[in-house]
């Protein structure tokens, strides 16, 4: 072929066998970004979208204006939830590998996003999560056994057997049902926030998606509506560097930080160290206060790393260096909060191990209980008759007829 393509094709900094290289990340020292007042004009704080808000420094001390000055007890609570998130994920992953559930997705490396944000938000604030927000469900009080029953599609499954594992919801805790499609929840969050404003309430909405999903049209619809109506919403982009096999450059991350996606629409963006519990908490509180005061939406980019595979169906060693996470300059969010608490004299290695052991036992017990409500192979089983419920508010005639046919066949 004589012709030569002039098309630009993004390339990740490292592939399997290469030495990991995160020099593209554009980091900043902890405490180097100043914290504006919540009523700052958007045009005056554009720099927040290109800088990097960090509180924890390399010596594990809290630095700068973004330090939320949380009580050690509160930080311990945060660390405990992150540990529960990780222990829960590890066990469920194992359970999937043993063939006891059909599918699983873990949040490894991204736990601080769900837990710190969960803690910074108010209970009445509505969450529109992605599939890597397991910690949010835990923090807002979803019982381990209920989450496991969902993964088992058993008789206690909140979804009545209709969803893939981990596509949870928790209406009482104000967490919307996770979709299997990407980014669709973003406009929902904006609409929910618009309704909150219409009703004169001060609840805000929040949503999460990954760097990859920012390419979806729904992302852009959400930002446009949020900007036009100044909806009280926090739109989180969890930049974990990888969307299955494609690195963040395929979502446009080579050009500008994801936090800057809203800047053209007049939405402030904050680029945050997504493995820094304190920075995430602080940025979220800032955006939430701003939204509650009528200041409109904020985009928060969490710079983090997908510590595990995309899902149990994925094998990341085929497309990225095996040990890449170990070289990620922002480390591991659990380890960093742990070291901070130890440095400040409020935690210890022994206590840490004790908590992990405590959670292992707790998770094992919950799994035992969950199994008593049925597994994929052993009853009790959900009644297939329920398949026809909830398609509509009331069962229409043709579905009643199909239900009758199915019962007849199942009985034969």
């Amino acid at each position, binding site marked *: 072929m004589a012709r030569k393509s002039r098309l630009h094709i993004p390339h990740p900094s490292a592939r399997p066998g290469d030495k990991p290289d995160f020099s593209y990340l554009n980091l900043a020292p902890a405490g180097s970004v100043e914290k504006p007042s919540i009523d700052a004009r958007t045009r005056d704080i554009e720099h927040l979208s290109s800088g990097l808000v960090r509180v924890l420094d390399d010596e594990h001390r809290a630095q700068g204006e973004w330090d939320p000055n949380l009580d050690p007890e509160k930080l311990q609570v945060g660390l405990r939830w992150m540990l529960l998130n990780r222990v829960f994920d590890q066990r469920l992953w194992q359970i999937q590998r043993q063939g006891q559930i059909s599918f699983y997705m873990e949040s490894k490396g991204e736990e601080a996003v769900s837990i710190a944000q969960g803690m910074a938000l108010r209970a009445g604030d509505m969450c529109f999560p992605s599939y890597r927000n397991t910690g949010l469900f835990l923090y807002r009080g979803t019982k381990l056994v209920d989450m496991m029953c969902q993964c088992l*599609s058993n008789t206690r499954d909140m979804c009545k057997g209709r969803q893939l594992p981990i596509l949870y919801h928790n209406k009482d805790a104000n967490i919307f049902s996770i979709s*299997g*499609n990407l*980014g669709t929840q973003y406009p929902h969050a904006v609409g929910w926030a618009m309704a909150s404003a219409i009703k004169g309430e001060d609840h805000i909405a929040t949503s999460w998606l990954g760097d990859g999903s920012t390419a979806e049209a729904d992302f852009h619809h959400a930002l446009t509506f949020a900007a036009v109506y100044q909806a009280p919403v926090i739109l989180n982009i969890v930049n974990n560097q990888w969307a*299955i096999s*494609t690195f963040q450059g*395929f*979502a446009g991350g080579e050009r500008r930080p994801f936090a800057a996606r809203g800047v053209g629409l007049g939405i402030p963006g904050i680029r945050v160290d997504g493995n820094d519990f304190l920075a995430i908490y602080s940025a979220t509180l800032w955006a939430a206060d701003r939204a509650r005061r009528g200041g409109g939406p904020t985009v928060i980019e969490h710079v983090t790393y997908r510590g595990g595979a995309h899902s149990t169906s994925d094998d990341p060693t085929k497309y990225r260096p095996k040990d890449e996470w170990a070289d990620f300059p922002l480390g591991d969010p659990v380890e960093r909060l742990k070291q901070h608490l130890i440095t400040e004299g409020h935690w210890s290695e022994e206590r840490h191990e004790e908590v992990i052991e405590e959670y292992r036992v707790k998770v094992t017990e919950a799994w035992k209980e969950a199994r008593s409500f049925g597994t994929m192979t052993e009853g009790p089983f959900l009644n297939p008759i329920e*398949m026809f419920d909830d398609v509509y508010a009331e069962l229409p005639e043709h579905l009643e007829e199909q239900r009758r046919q199915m019962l007849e*066949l199942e009985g034969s």
Partner: protein
Amino acid sequence: MAQMNMIEAIRSGLDVVMDKDPNVVVMGEDVGYFGGVFRCTDGLQRKFGEHRVIDAPIAEGGIIGTAIGMGLNGLRPVAEIQFADYIYPGFDQVVSELARIRYRSGGDFFSPVTIRTPCGGGIRGGQTHSQSPEAIFTHISGIKVVIPSNPYDAKGLLISAIESDDPVIFFEPKRIYNGPFDGDPEKPAVPWTSHPKGDVPKDYYTIPLGSAEIVEEGSELTIITYGTLVHVAQAAAKIVGVDAEIIDVRSLSPLDTTALVESVKKTGRCLVAHEATRFSGFGAELVTTVQEACFYHLEAPIERVAGWDTPYPHAFEWQYFPGQKRLAAGIRKVMEAA
């Protein structure tokens, strides 16, 4: 000839057509370096380079929209939508643009895009990885819709689809990627090597779009189906012990009306089956086509077997899936009718 499963046959189809025509490009999520989540494009980027096998942002509307633009500028794009369940963000680009560009420009413009997308259930995929949305697309004038049921057909039909100057949506029933599936989930998986249609020529060949295939000849009943259910229908006919003529539609649009009509005129009885939901499903079109042409030859009402009219439930996959039992019940009903 070589033994291929459906994934390998699709890959081989892409390979030979890319060898033949430098304007063929492949684009989709994870299709390049990684080779696709179902491995259908594995090795193609290494062979043809990253300017012809292009990893795409996660934006199905963007993939289809830009594929249309590439097609307008002389390329012959093959867009992959990772799961048919993800195709809806690209729906406007398919319906309002891709399907109508030739028509609205008085024949001056066209874009020969092929959209490949895995469909169907039976893989524990829940309601967002199991759908069979073919009828939504057969309802649109200006696009062709193809669903192969085996490796041999998959390759030949795919090459025809790519070489067609009309846009084609090419659905790949993912349950039969690795082997034919007769509808019994308890049985051990069978590989394509045990099936005659797993024998696939390594080189270029085509199967024309718009041609159905008589999979089994028979005299008592015609079963019209496509995709995974071709194999289920064969098993169900054996269970009932009926001499059924089984027709694999293969190309839903354009439809090989002649093949269907001739068969039903011969047998006088007809059952239509698909995995997709029943209401306004493609079965309705098949039944009407047969009824209009064969009314005076029919000895019994035409029977339809399809997925229930609900989303695809994760826990009740096998109660939802129209398996052997449901097909057998349908066959008996048609056979027992006066």
